[in-house]
């Protein structure tokens, strides 16, 4: 009886999971292996891939644009992730204030996060127009400085994307806010009675209590950052002078504009390995700074 019910459960378990399992095999497992294989071939997308061993990887390491795109992306991630963390957490702390109308601020700050990336790209292309853009007008009238060319200046184009990314900080702020709201009140109150200031409360209680969410945020931000594509495709398409040729943009061009599927697959695998290593490092160090409350789920 028990054995047959266990078998029955296994059968139903698999049956209910079947669509996902099929999808996983077809749209995840197979593509991962296939892209590894393609990365070792010369392949235009039709016909048979021609085995060239490590040729693509060798060529990539000698491809100046590959290094440019990697540099641009690391530059972007290196700024956008830490700044995004501070902005998101800062917003969350502000939105956690005991104000009657705080829900309105939360809504307003979150809205940009739900907008299509294409629209975001266009809005900022317009906002950052060197001549008619609102930001340079603001800089000129308030601070009397001539704003830079932003997307048309190789020096300022990458920082412009970092800034643009902060417009979506409401997304992470809402997640941080949910975590902060969940910090037990008694903990903060008893710390207050013991004479703890706001910095002590923040660094010794709030940060450790929300550290699992911080871990989640860092990993998703890292992944998102490395895969920046749409806003760059719209606002600069890699320019000026390849200063915003981000990794996935160059990968996309290789795959779908130059039909170098093998080459692009090699790029994809290098990206895969980079983000996996970074994730692993974050996870490894997280044992030291992430604090899990007891009680499981």
């Amino acid at each position, binding site marked *: 009886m028990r054995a047959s019910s266990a078998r029955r459960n296994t059968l139903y378990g698999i*049956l209910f999971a079947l669509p996902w399992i099929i999808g996983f095999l077809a749209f995840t497992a197979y593509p991962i292996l296939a892209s590894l294989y393609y990365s070792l071939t010369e392949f235009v997308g039709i016909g048979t891939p021609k085995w060239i061993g490590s040729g693509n990887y060798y060529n990539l390491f000698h491809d100046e644009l590959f290094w440019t795109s990697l540099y641009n992306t690391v530059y972007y991630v290196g700024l956008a992730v830490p700044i995004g963390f501070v902005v998101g957490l800062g917003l969350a702390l502000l939105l956690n204030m005991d*104000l009657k109308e705080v829900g309105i601020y939360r809504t307003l700050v979150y*809205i940009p996060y739900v907008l299509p990336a294409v629209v975001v790209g266009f*809005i900022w292309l317009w906002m950052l127009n060197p001549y008619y853009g609102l930001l340079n007008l603001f800089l000129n009238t308030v601070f009397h400085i001539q704003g830079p060319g932003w997307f048309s200046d190789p020096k300022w184009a990458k920082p412009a994307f970092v800034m643009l990314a902060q417009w979506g900080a409401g997304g992470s702020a809402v997640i941080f806010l949910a975590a902060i709201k969940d910090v037990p009140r008694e903990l903060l109150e008893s710390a207050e009675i013991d004479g703890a200031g706001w910095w002590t409360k923040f660094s010794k209680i709030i940060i450790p209590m929300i550290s699992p969410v911080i871990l989640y945020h860092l990993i998703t931000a890292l992944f998102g950052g490395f895969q920046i594509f749409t806003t760059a495709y719209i606002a600069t398409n890699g320019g000026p002078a390849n200063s915003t040729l981000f990794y996935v943009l160059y990968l996309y061009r290789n795959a779908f504009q130059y039909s170098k599927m093998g080459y692009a697959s090699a790029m994809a695998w290098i990206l895969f390995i980079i983000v996996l290593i970074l994730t692993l490092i974050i996870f490894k160090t997280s044992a030291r700074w992430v604090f899990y409350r007891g009680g499981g789920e």
Partner: protein
Amino acid sequence: MTLRHFTLKILGRLVLILISIVFLVPIFWMFTTSIKDLSEVMTYPPVWWPNPPKWHNYIKAVNYIPFGRYTLNTIIITVGNIAGVLFSAPLVAYSISRIKWKGRNILFMFILSTVLIPFPVIMIPVFIVFSRLGWINTFRPLIIPAFFGGGAFNIFLLRQFFMTIPEELSDAARIDGASEFGIYSRIMLPLIKPILIVISLFTFLGSWNDFMGPLIYLQNEAKYTLALGLQMYRSTNYVEWPLLMAASTIVVIPTIIAFYFTQNTIVESITLTGLKG
């Protein structure tokens, strides 16, 4: 103490108002640009509110590109995705949370691990498979995978929800002779309706806003989605800013409405995911 508290509140309020304005200005700028004519766009200092507002820009914008066609295309893809996710995500979430079988923890690990795979890694082989099937320039590559996945985050969310439902409920139904699928469809799904709505809205935002997917699969202009179509207001060295911003405003409105209806549930569901630790 109270005075300090009072000033802090005033200060915080001021900062929040300022931040809200900063976050809203680009959206306001999109809108106000959409009702200007070209001469009002290219002036310095800029015009904050055109007089009179050029509302007919909206009519021009929807006639400048096949706007109706693209809206329909986008709706087909979006509805298809929502249907797909609502089909596949609750099924697998049910399997790993309500059915006691050996493989369920491993399966859950696999589901979570899919978030660690960058899209470009799977994009090329999947594209090649779909092109061999002759599915390029159809909506199939943008819809069908949803029926065989559901998204790790959605599944995670659903699993957390399923686990809050008492086991006795299923047991009682089993004793009454209900089949596993009967329990799922007649008892469980109605119970998790709120989260199904949240997931639908997430999926809506994801497909409505998607750019890279349609960019790869839809090369025929008649098949474009709104996100792709917005590019057509721009030529090599010229952008129809007022029309582009008018079209953008129209494209954005559904996302803001969708967000408005979900904002509270989003916060609640995030708390429920146990992400809080």
